[in-house]
């Protein structure tokens, strides 16, 4: 019997069908599955009691009150603390990876000093404090020899640093933020305290520049308030309008986006004021007449349209809509939460004053400062108003002598300042740079001495009245976990060193300082560490004026005809203090970072004008430096504007953030605001090649 084709097929088919009835195939598949999943190292999950503890996270741009979940004492997850008024629930995307950041490869494991060869060697805390004390003793009482900069404007830790600087006869600064312009604005208007906005009781919120849903003010709180005003499936209670050059997260969430050219927020507000004054709006401020004259003569619809790009009819419609609302509020700030100066806030305050919305529910509030815990410290508003960028610009220009010692607390000035190339060099000119950083950031990488601060989960922490909230408040937290590394709270270091130098700040430990702060504010410490926030319902009495004379100098019409830079900031990319967290890398859009190339965004009309297309590699040049970037076409950008993300181009940190993209801060041009003398950098122009 021969094997013909039919017999062959029958045999093969019979074999295949038959094999399905044996366990061999299935066992092999099962084994293949197991073999394919053999990996060299299998991480073991940690089991144990799951606990929850309230904490105040300071990873994000603003303090975030959250509940930290731990297993066997190790934090692994966070969620918002809805019971805490400071952030009202929810977490920001940096704080969401807070427990993982505790284990970041960028953590500094212990105190280190730089050797003569430029490398770092570990030293004991005793030696580190001795070295610091020696350096400080040499400059004590000598003006200009010591500078202190803090990246945390809400913590009492900064108050300790301020008191210490005062005892040393030195200056203490804060890293630049929108709060600086607001403090200068309030001072110009004759007010004292801190500007805040009662968004939850407003029925019409106009954000001018301020990217409230991603970088401006208490972001998580803003988002929660926004959410509460529009319950899912129900009617909208509050209308949100965003005015700015880029369709950012706030503009996307708002009911309307009004494209406004970068750096012209004050002109936009005064353009609104023009229509309101024309409709008969007035206020009882002493310089109302001057203000009216200024607005009617210099901010007519045609001039405003030329500067901002907003047509007169649209401006009139917005003004009408605001005036029709029963509880409107206007909030001004920079699109990237820094560098706007005072004019924008004064102009927005002017609109609020014309609306009669100052110190009213749902309006602009002037909040009292909480009592100081450290008597020698400067008042919060005085501290905030100091111009660190101006100080460094003076050093860079050779007009001011570089300090012999500079102390940077939770601040990364080598990376995060505008006109970065020049100002980072000014920081490095310090004779002895000390970094109190948790992470090996750019400033720590240049420091002569690194004294690592534990993360906010490993130390006592507090937060008072973050800029932008509508009421004075205080929150605090106790450590959630044991310190992982050989770190020491900076407050304890400073108190110890101060004592050795004969400076009595009144306390012996960090937790004693925080408890005293709570006590002086009238808050219950135990409630605070359990997760509640102390909230004061008082506001500053007394009237404010329009600061017309300041406005007339500070607001200048742009020349036009140039390509403007519109930087934007997203918490996914980290903050000025924390680089891109490892968990956030995959969240970044491929239209913002492609491989190692930074993407900047222009609309198709601008792209055509510039002769670029999607993916084109170009070089942006500003007054402070150059950046090589790629182009992404996005119709959510104004004509003649390049939107560029901040937060990239790190040179230190770890593989998750280092060497990715470019630091757009290099392109930001620092100027001086007439009338206030503040350093400003929201109006930067670039050339493209």
């Amino acid at each position: 019997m021969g094997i013909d084709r039919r017999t062959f097929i029958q045999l093969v088919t019979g074999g295949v069908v038959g094999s399905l009835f044996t366990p061999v195939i299935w066992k092999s598949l099962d084994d293949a599955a197991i073999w394919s999943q053999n990996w060299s190292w299998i991480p073991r999950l940690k089991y144990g009691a799951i606990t929850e503890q309230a904490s105040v996270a300071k990873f994000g741009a603003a303090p975030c009150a959250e509940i930290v979940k731990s297993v066997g004492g190790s934090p692994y997850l966070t969620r918002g603390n809805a019971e805490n008024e400071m952030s009202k629930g929810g977490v920001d995307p940096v704080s969401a990876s807070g427990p993982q950041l505790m284990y970041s490869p960028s953590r500094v494991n212990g105190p280190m000093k730089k050797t003569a060869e430029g490398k770092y060697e570990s030293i004991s805390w005793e030696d580190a404090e001795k070295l610091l004390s020696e350096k400080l003793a040499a400059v004590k009482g000598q003006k200009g020899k010591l500078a202190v900069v803090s990246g945390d404007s809400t913590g009492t830790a900064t108050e300790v640093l301020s008191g210490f600087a005062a005892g040393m006869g030195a200056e203490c600064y804060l890293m630049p933020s929108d709060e600086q312009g607001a403090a200068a604005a309030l001072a110009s208007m004759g007010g004292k305290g801190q500007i805040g906005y009662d968004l939850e009781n407003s029925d019409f919120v106009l954000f001018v520049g301020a990217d409230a849903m991603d970088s401006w003010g208490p972001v998580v709180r803003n988002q929660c308030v926004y959410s509460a005003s529009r319950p899912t499936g129900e009617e909208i209670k509050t209308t949100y309008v965003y005015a700015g050059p880029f369709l950012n997260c706030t503009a996307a969430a708002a009911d309307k986006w009004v494209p406004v050219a970068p750096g012209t927020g004050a002109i936009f507000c005064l353009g609104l004021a023009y229509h309101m004054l024309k409709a008969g709006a007035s206020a009882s401020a002493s310089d109302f007449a001057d203000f009216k004259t200024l607005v009617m003569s210099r901010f007519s619809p045609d001039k405003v349209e030329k500067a901002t790009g907003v047509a007169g009819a649209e401006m009139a419609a917005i003004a009408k809509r605001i005036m029709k609302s029963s509880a409107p509020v206007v909030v001004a700030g920079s699109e990237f939460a820094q560098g706007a100066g005072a004019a924008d806030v004064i102009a927005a305050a002017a609109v609020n004053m014309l609306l009669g919305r100052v110190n009213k529910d749902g309006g602009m509030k002037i909040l009292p400062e909480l009592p100081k815990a450290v008597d020698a410290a400067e008042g919060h508003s005085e501290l905030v108003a100091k111009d660190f960028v101006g100080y460094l610009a003076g050093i860079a220009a050779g007009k001011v002598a570089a300090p012999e010692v500079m102390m940077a607390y939770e601040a990364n000035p080598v990376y995060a300042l505008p006109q970065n190339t020049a100002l980072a060099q000014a920081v490095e000119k310090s004779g002895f740079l000390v970094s109190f950083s948790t992470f090996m950031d750019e400033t720590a990488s240049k420091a002569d001495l690194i004294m690592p601060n534990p993360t906010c989960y490993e130390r006592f922490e507090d937060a008072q009245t973050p800029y932008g909230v509508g009421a004075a408040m205080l929150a605090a937290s106790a450590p959630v976990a044991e310190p992982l590394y050989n770190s020491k709270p900076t407050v304890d270091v400073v108190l110890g060193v101060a004592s050795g130098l004969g400076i009595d700040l009144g306390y012996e430990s960090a937790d004693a300082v925080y408890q005293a702060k709570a006590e002086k504010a009238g808050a219950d410490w135990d409630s605070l560490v359990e997760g509640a926030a102390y909230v004061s319902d008082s506001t500053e009495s007394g009237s404010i004026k329009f600061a017309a004379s300041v406005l007339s100098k500070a607001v200048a019409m742009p020349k036009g005809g140039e390509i403007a830079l519109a930087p934007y900031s997203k918490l996914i990319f980290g903050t000025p203090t924390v680089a891109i967290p490892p968990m956030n890398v995959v969240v970044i859009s491929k239209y913002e970072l492609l491989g190692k190339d930074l993407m900047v965004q222009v609309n198709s009309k601008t792209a055509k004008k510039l002769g670029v297309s999607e993916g084109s590699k170009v070089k942006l040049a500003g007054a402070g430096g150059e950046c090589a970037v790629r182009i992404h076409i996005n119709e959510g950008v104004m004509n003649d504007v390049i939107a560029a993300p901040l937060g990239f181009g790190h040179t230190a940190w770890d593989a998750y953030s280092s060497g990715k993209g470019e630091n757009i801060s290099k392109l930001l041009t620092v100027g001086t605001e007439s009338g206030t003398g503040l350093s400003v950098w929201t109006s930067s122009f670039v050339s493209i090649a």
Partner: protein
Amino acid sequence: MQQMEFDTKWTMVVDVDKCTGCGACMVSCQAENNIAPMEEGSNKLKTLTWMLVYELNNGKEFPNREVAYLPRPCMQCGHPACVPVCPVVATTKDEEGGIVSQIYPRCIGCRYCMAACPYHARYFGWLDPVWPGGMDKALSPSTSTRPRGVVEKCNFCHTRLMDARARARSEGLDPNKLPDGWYQPACLEACPTGAISFGDVKNPEHKVHELVKNPNAFRILESIGMDPQVYYISRRDWVREQSDNHVAEDKH
């Protein structure tokens, strides 16, 4: 195709108009489900993001451009395309409130399910997961770690359902009739704008029971009949139109 119906149907409703695209849900999902960090995030074909926030736009030129953000977990379809194509039955739709499960040790990495899923909600682990610098000490005890070579996906943080049921049993309640809010996925818990609602759509006491009936509620690619358990709500016509692969020139 016959649809399996269960007494409980866990359903997510996302208010697209409230999502600001902040990304907190994506980060929180990674932390809860032990998704290892990746150094290279641009290669979206190889990254793992069980929850993914898409950016939508209305297609118009400046100044008429509008943007919306659409968070996309696994849709836990009523007629899941991924289940019948799995040769080793590593994925099933079962009685856990209609959640489509994924059994990692059984998966042979053939990726048929990924090819079948119209929502691109399934992810293949191309790379060995690495938790650097002791970051493995911050692993969640809820979710097993997975090696490379298997397909993984969102499971509505299923272990939280187990925890909620255990709590109900300990408090003398019916574990199959959980009160609203007792079972919340990590993405919902993190979301600052409250864009995500979650619950049993068959339980009239749960908020989602009414939300899915909202005139602005819709499901993605509804016309292909997957019957997803994730609903979206938007007041904007263009957002709803894009949900079903709407092409402007098409007549509907």
